[in-house]
């Protein structure tokens, strides 16, 4: 991370862009499993009318390459953000009123995101809007990443919370921060290995997937709102940001919890589907997300 940021600072955006394009092309050419998974994803999107329109071409090798390239473009912007060179980034924001309302009421909440679009762009927006957002990471390296982020941008309020699904520390930290009126963001499109039994099976782009329940269960227990936030690149350093409220914050009675949480996970998957159909190239899960290889 330090090295790539140093490269960006020294070589500039244009040279880094060429390097990233080369790296992405290399991965595209050598990662046959990724290419296969990519085409299967694109076919799913292509099967929908909105998806077909947004793709603008058949779900073939070229469309698959464009997805890899979109990832490279997002990566370039992420480098700019980490290097503190993103002052000229422009945002078109929809749904900001949900964040404003929470801030006015001093309420915290859980923000669910996905490997869809660029979540570092959301971090920059939060910084500009002076909102405190903590990101939950499924990694043992949270402390190290925090140290590097501190070096790179000491003023940024976003911090990583280390999360081991079995760790009490993470859930208590989330609770503490939400109670303090802050936002905690969780990427909720991938179930972690420790979440067995804590997932909802829901149909996503025509095929069942397991969506993690923990963000929604936690919100239910804390009685806090759940927002969905996604940022899509529309050009270099230009983003469309969408914020939606999945729930205002209800504490489910125990007997209705399973149902309430399932409904939220399903609603989340439905919104992901909506955005995949509009920004199909920015779905950045490059592995066999639907488990097609296992089932075939």
């Amino acid at each position, binding site marked *: 991370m330090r090295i790539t940021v140093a490269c960006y600072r020294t070589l500039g955006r244009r040279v880094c862009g060429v390097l990233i394009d080369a790296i992405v092309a290399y991965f595209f050419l050598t990662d046959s499993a990724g290419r296969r998974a990519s085409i299967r994803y694109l076919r799913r999107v292509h099967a929908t009318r909105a998806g077909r329109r947004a793709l603008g071409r058949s779900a073939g090798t070229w469309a698959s390459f464009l997805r890899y390239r979109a990832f490279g473009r997002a990566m370039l912007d992420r480098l700019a953000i980490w290097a503190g060179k993103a002052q000229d980034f422009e945002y078109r924001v929809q749904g900001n009123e949900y964040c404003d309302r929470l801030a006015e009421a001093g309420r915290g909440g859980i923000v669910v995101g996905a490997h869809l679009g660029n979540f570092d762009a959301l971090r920059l927006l939060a910084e500009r809007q002076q909102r405190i957002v903590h990101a939950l990471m499924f990694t043992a390296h949270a402390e190290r990443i925090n140290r590097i982020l501190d070096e790179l941008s000491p003023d940024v309020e976003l911090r990583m919370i280390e999360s081991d*699904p079995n760790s*009490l520390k*993470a*859930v208590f930290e989330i*609770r*503490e921060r939400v109670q303090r009126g802050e936002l905690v963001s969780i990427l909720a499109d991938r179930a972690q290995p420790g979440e067995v039994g804590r997932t909802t099976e829901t149909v996503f782009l025509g095929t069942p997937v397991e969506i993690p329940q923990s963000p929604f269960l936690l919100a239910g*227990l804390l009685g806090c709102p759940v927002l969905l936030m996604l940022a899509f690149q529309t050009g270099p350093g230009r983003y469309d940001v969408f914020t939606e409220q999945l729930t205002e914050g209800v504490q489910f009675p125990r007997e209705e919890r399973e149902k309430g949480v399932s409904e939220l996970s399903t609603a989340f998957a439905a919104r992901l589907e909506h955005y995949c159909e509009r920004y199909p190239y920015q779905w950045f899960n490059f592995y066999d997300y639907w488990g097609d290889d296992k089932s075939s």
Partner: protein
Amino acid sequence: MPSTDEIYKWVAEVLKQQFHFRDADLRPQASLIDDLDLDSIDAIDLTVRLEEKTGLAFKEEDLKAIHTIQDVVDFLHARL
């Protein structure tokens, strides 16, 4: 101040109501993780219920010393 027996009854009641345990599952020395199979989400759940019941606020550090039902009871007894 409630007695440890009373507190044990509260805790057992919460575990039965919220987690559908039966009396046979519950004994003072039962480990919350190993015997009752509670995970971190359940721990928050249990914490929220006990806080509502007692008016106390639990921190993560407080939970480090808690392994069994008896530990929960002792913890509450020391603070109520």
